[in-house]
């Protein structure tokens, strides 16, 4: 017979009693969500891995202060978002310190044939990287973390209708970006001709 899954609060209590396995189980349960949030804020940056480690370390260290007023997932969402935004703002400051030039859409994001899995992924990632951070977070929660609109709304603290709108607008934005000649599938061969 399959053992029933313990509630988050029970895993929190077990972690506080020194059960490291319980913390792993707790975090694994919400890992896709936390990862999606960090990716939503930072996109495909190198810092994602580092931020994820910090998120779990802070969650572990701060677990004693978690009083169960909100769901554990919401609490973890807030930590993940705060840490990712922190890195994102530092990055913006660093970028502002140096003279920047407008960088055109990278040609490699428009594969001749977007059928191979890797190039298709790159194509999608490129468009995701250009859309608004809020829409991207909603989309990552929806697809990467497989969250329902109700769950997205609860995590982001918005009405369900707004969560749907964010996802929809994000996809419309992606479509607009991917319709540009530089991004369109087969555009390279079209340009050559």
């Amino acid at each position, binding site marked *: 017979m399959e053992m029933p899954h313990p509630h988050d609060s029970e895993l929190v209590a077990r*972690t*506080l009693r020194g059960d490291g396995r319980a*913390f792993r189980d707790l*975090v694994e349960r919400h*890992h896709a969500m936390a990862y999606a949030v960090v990716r939503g804020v930072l996109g495909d940056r190198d810092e994602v891995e580092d931020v994820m*480690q910090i998120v*779990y370390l802070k969650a*572990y260290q701060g677990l004693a202060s978690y009083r169960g007023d909100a769901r554990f997932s919401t609490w973890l969402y807030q930590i993940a978002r705060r840490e990712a935004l922190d890195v994102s703002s530092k990055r913006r400051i660093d970028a502002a310190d140096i003279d920047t030039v407008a960088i055109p859409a990278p040609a490699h994001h428009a594969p001749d044939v977007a059928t191979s899995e890797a190039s*298709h992924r790159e194509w999608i990632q490129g468009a995701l990287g250009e859309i608004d951070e809020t829409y991207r977070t909603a989309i990552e929660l929806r697809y990467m973390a497989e969250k329902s609109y109700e769950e997205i709304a609860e995590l982001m603290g918005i009405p369900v209708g707004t969560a749907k709108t964010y996802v929809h607008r994000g*996809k419309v934005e992606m479509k607009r970006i991917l319709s540009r000649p530089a991004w369109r599938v087969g555009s390279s061969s079209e340009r050559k001709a």
Partner: protein
Amino acid sequence: MSQHLNQNCERFEAMMDDWFDGSLSAAEQRDLSEHRSVCASCRESFELSSRIEDGLVSRQSLVPPVDSFLPAIAPAPARALHPRLVRVFRGLMSPAGTAALLVMWVTMLTFHFRDPIGTWLTRFSTERLGVVSQNITSELIELSRGDVLTLSAIYVALALAVLASTGAITLRYIRNS
């Protein structure tokens, strides 16, 4: 005719999300399929949306295993102190609180070892309480019951201060570690 087609195109675009979510009725699905078959622009739009949808759905596979991000977990995280206790310790950690604690520590030690400051403080307190003592260092101080109680209260307060300062130092250590 053209206006009707445009209206259908707008409806097609608006309903595409629901199509991919699988939340359209059979009749709506049929309408969209019919429109797609006659409208080249919507067909192209649908194909692009399909590719985007496929790419987004496959993003689940990009989530790395949780173990690569977990910190080395050794001891259990410290349990949270009661908020009121934390406020008291925070007060003690302020410069004024630390100075007051330091004075109390020194006072308590001098009382204990009967050094000159302690003697002075004892004399001061006994004189204030109206007790006459000719040779305070060599003779036992004759104190009334009330005096003993007052001095005992001072000692208890000092002991509590020592405990509180120890707690504050412990809290500071936990926060820094």
